């Protein structure tokens, strides 16, 4: 078989350069980003269940005051390691508006596992009115919706600083190292020791920020673990098939005079 010629290599490099160009474009949000070694990075990545549960607690006790989680249902919490009874109990802590009933009235009932997380505000205008005009975005896709999502979110959480000398911070804005333009409407959400974790968990700002980032990474890509597991199996199968199909090709071609 003829070895890969220079044209083949050149054309694949062309594809590579163009693709990495578009990836490079995705980086560079303008702020200072800390790169962390997340458990969910890489082809063998997985979510740390204890961290997910802690992060979920941070979401409930800190973020959920303003931010929705529209695409996550209580039943999805089984991914975090909760059993059915625990999920029912968590769902029941929420009030969900349902209806109309037979009288045509809307009513409030306790949540069930099939419900999605209720939004903290009835609509965008209410959210803006409650936050000085800024709209707290939904968090269910946040890690996928930002370049370098997990590192960015973590850096944002720990990035609140006093503004440098001479920088004017407008009313209702806050200085953040990671945020593009550095002026962010969201007040610092986590200071450390904000919440009490079961079993004396680490409640430093770094630990809580990492936990909530892990939780949001899961919320963005709940399929990630099974995707990567399936991927490993698919790659093993395809690599074996590469050898098999290469061998059969060589066998078929053995009678062609080169």
């Amino acid at each position, binding site marked *: 078989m003829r070895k890969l010629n220079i044209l083949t290599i050149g*054309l694949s490099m062309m594809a590579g350069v163009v*693709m990495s*160009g*578009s*990836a490079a474009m*995705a980086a560079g949000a303008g702020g200072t980003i800390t790169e962390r070694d997340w458990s969910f990075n890489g082809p063998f990545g997985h979510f740390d269940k204890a961290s997910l549960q802690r992060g979920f607690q941070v979401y409930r006790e800190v973020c959920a005051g303003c931010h929705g989680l529209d695409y996550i249902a209580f039943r999805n919490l089984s991914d975090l390691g909760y059993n059915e009874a625990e999920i029912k109990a968590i769902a029941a802590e929420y009030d969900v508006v349902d209806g109309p009933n037979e009288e045509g009235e809307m009513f409030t009932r306790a949540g069930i596992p099939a419900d999605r997380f209720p939004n903290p505000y009835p609509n965008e205008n209410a959210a803006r009115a409650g936050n000085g005009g800024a709209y707290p975005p939904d968090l269910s*896709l946040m890690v*996928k919706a930002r370049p370098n999502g997990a590192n960015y979110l973590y850096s944002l959480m720990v990035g609140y600083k006093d503004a440098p000398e001479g920088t004017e911070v407008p009313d209702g804005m806050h200085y953040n190292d990671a945020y593009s333009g550095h002026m962010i409407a969201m007040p610092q959400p986590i200071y450390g020791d904000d919440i009490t974790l079961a079993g004396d968990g680490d409640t430093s700002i770094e630990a809580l920020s990492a936990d909530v980032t892990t939780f949001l990474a899961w919320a963005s890509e709940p399929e990630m673990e099974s*995707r990567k597991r399936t*991927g490993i199996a698919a790659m093993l199968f395809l690599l074996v098939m590469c050898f098999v199909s290469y061998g059969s090709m060589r066998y078929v071609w053995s009678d062609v005079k080169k």
Partner: protein
Amino acid sequence: MQTQNFKNPVVRWIDHRLPVFSFMHHELHEYPTPKNLNYLWNLGSLAGLALVTMIVTGIILAMHYTPHVDHAFESVERIMRDVNHGWLIRYIHMNGASFFFIVVFIHIFRGLYYGSYKAPRELLWILGVLILLLMMATAFMGYVLPWGQMSFWGATVITNLFSAIPFVGESIVVWLWGGFSVDNPTLSRFFALHYLMPFVITAVVILHIIALHRFGSNNPLGIDVNGKQDTIPFHPYYTSKDLFGAVVFLTIFASAVFFYPNFLGHPDNYIPANPLQTPAHIVPEWYFLPFYAILRAIPDKLGGVLFMFGAIAVLFILPWLDRSPVRSGRFRPIFKVFFWLLLADCVLLGWLGAKPAEGIYVVLSRLATAWYFFHFLIVLPVLSLVEKTRPLPQSISTSVLGGGALAGAASATKEKPDA
């Protein structure tokens, strides 16, 4: 076409009345193919594989997708989260578009290098360029469907290009939108057309293959097949080689789908479309970036649109721009250099398309755009006249047997129609 004598009586009965089996035997089995094709000739079958993959996954996605501005984004998220293996189907479709373009771009540059567009394959080439155009339209409309920020703003930017047409431009844009901005009517029609176009592509692909089978594949030497000693039957030789190529392709494709599914996408498209908030940089998908760079390189809107479409238009007339009788770049020392320059130029344009239109990027975009057209409109016609080509081998089999020894002294072959 002569009919075959099939052993199976049912097959024979059918084939006597409807010679589909003879047809398949003729076109897929005994179809004589040059014996010296290299791996770059795998890309055609890979493009077919990509097309089928896109159609199959696309039909499944259409079963779960809702083409309405209020529901489109959420329906895609439902596919990702609640439909069984919906994430797999969608990631295959999403990355499949990129890989389809990678394959087709390599396929096109293979044709450029080996002169596959030259007589008697001009129509084959033109049909291929038509497929590229249709693919671009399909991909553009498909990218709008998830109704994220880039979907919406990409659609706004690209549809607005038509407003550059003198006199009727504004009316055409309103007609395209079905309203006064990109909105629900736009999304619905894009969905309808996105579903239709792949079947139009399939039809043109069939014509492309019919045209291909008229004279058979070109080959790395670019010389005509002289007889049976130069060819081997398509099956099992090229079926086995195409299968190997397909598995290698799928391995690379799968690594993107399973491990880096969003690498080629833009994070902004995971933000629901918001007509009141423009993203900081509106960038098209990577496969449009070279064309986008050309569009922005021209300071005039209409001019930009004309040059962008002109970049495709020159490909349509390429067989008449390059009149050199020698097909393969292997025997064209100067052409070869310019080929690589063109490739580098296209990569540069792609890189520039992702950069903001300011400062040095604008200057580079203009130079790269100028070079692109210079290559096709000046370099190729002039080279056809002045280039001294290297001597061609007498036949594929002597070259294959003699390990590339160049027999014969004639420096250029005459164009002899094959049939």
